[in-house]
């Protein structure tokens, strides 16, 4: 069997494993519920199909094109780029644990797909540079939502996430204040990001 055939056969099992690992974080069930689980399963199936085609045609670009297309779909539905990259990385780890001799090719494509989701231009790219120095998941996720909001010129996406995250984390206001200070001191062009944070904070205060 070729690697893409092995992947197709193991696809449902690999997707279930990734789904279980994602949903270990209570954010997913709280934010997207059963509907989210259903869509995550469908998306997992598509990841495998596009990965198989990327392997067969020996083209990372096929998978990266898919990743970019899917990113736009998901970030407009409440996720951030980091979530999709994490999903690819978990799938890569699941494939790494298989006994297939040439599994490294699939792992490489998934990692390249995850890396390709980093924004490379404008103020969003500056936030990616901060993300590279951010070990904690919560802050990195905030930065990823913020970078997406800037890259797609949709500040309301960031506000929607923070409004929801505030219901799970009482510390969110303090986290946002710390993030704001950090961006103000470390980004070369901090104003666009600060404006997005400020409007999200204002919306949260208004809702209170």
């Amino acid at each position, binding site marked *: 069997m070729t690697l893409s055939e092995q992947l197709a056969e193991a696809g449902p099992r690999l997707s279930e494993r990734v789904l279980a690992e994602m949903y270990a974080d209570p954010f997913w069930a709280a934010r997207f519920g059963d509907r989210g689980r259903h869509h995550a399963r469908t998306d997992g199936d*598509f990841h495998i199909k596009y990965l198989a085609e990327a392997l067969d*045609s020996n083209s990372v670009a096929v998978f990266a094109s898919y990743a970019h297309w899917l990113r736009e779909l998901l970030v407009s539905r409440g996720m951030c780029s980091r979530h999709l990259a994490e999903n690819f990385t978990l799938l890569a780890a699941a494939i790494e644990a298989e006994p297939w001799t040439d599994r490294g090719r699939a792992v490489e494509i998934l990692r390249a797909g995850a890396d390709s989701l980093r924004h490379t231009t404008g103020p969003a790219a500056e936030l990616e540079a901060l993300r590279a120095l951010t070990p904690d998941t919560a802050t990195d996720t905030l930065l990823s939502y913020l970078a997406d909001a800037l890259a797609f010129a949709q500040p309301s996406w960031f506000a929607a996430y923070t409004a929801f995250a505030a219901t799970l984390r009482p510390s969110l206001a303090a986290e946002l204040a710390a993030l704001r200070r950090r961006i103000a001191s470390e980004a070369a062009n901090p104003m666009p990001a600060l404006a997005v944070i400020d409007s999200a904070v204002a919306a949260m205060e208004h809702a209170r």
Partner: protein
Amino acid sequence: MSVIAIDFAGLAHRFVAAQLAGDRAEALRVVVDDGVRRGARVIDLQAHVIRAAQQQIGVLWQRNQISIAQEHLATGIAQVVTARLFELAPLAKRNGKRVAVACVEGERHEFPARLIADYLDQAGFTVRYFGADLPTDHLVRELAKDRPHVVALSATMSFHLPALRATIAAVRAELGEHAPIIVGGHALRWSPALAAELGVTTAAAEPDEVVATIQRMAEAT
């Protein structure tokens, strides 16, 4: 009927609005009254109004600005209008060349292939259009009977490319190693090197260009 400059982008914008409103009558008015009756070519209305509108609808769905139900409603309207436009299209004198147009097995997005079939019919080709998701062996059986001058295949999703490869191999096994095959669909855009690798021609986006390419391929056989 006097020919005046037609604002296709403006018509496409109005067409999308009619699709989102679920208003078939308005969608027909846009392309028939304000398109055909003002001198626009049907082929241009198909490409630059209906297809452009469908692409816009796809982007709106991708960006979560419309639901999947609205997307289906919009596509239903595009299909009705496409059928009506075809009735109104002047058909060129038959040129004696036969073309088979099909989506590869598993491919359910038939709209791009249907438009190609319509363009070719208008240009004088004898077209056999097989629609969405035709099992490869059934396609090959039909091709064996009809022996078209050109085979046009569509694949919109990358994971249908294995089916595209299999179809091309099956067509060649039946019609010969050098059977002229043209491929189109979004999947080719994400795999731009594939057509050359498979030794097939890629369909251009512009209808006149696709028709001219298929004309050349048909004449060479």
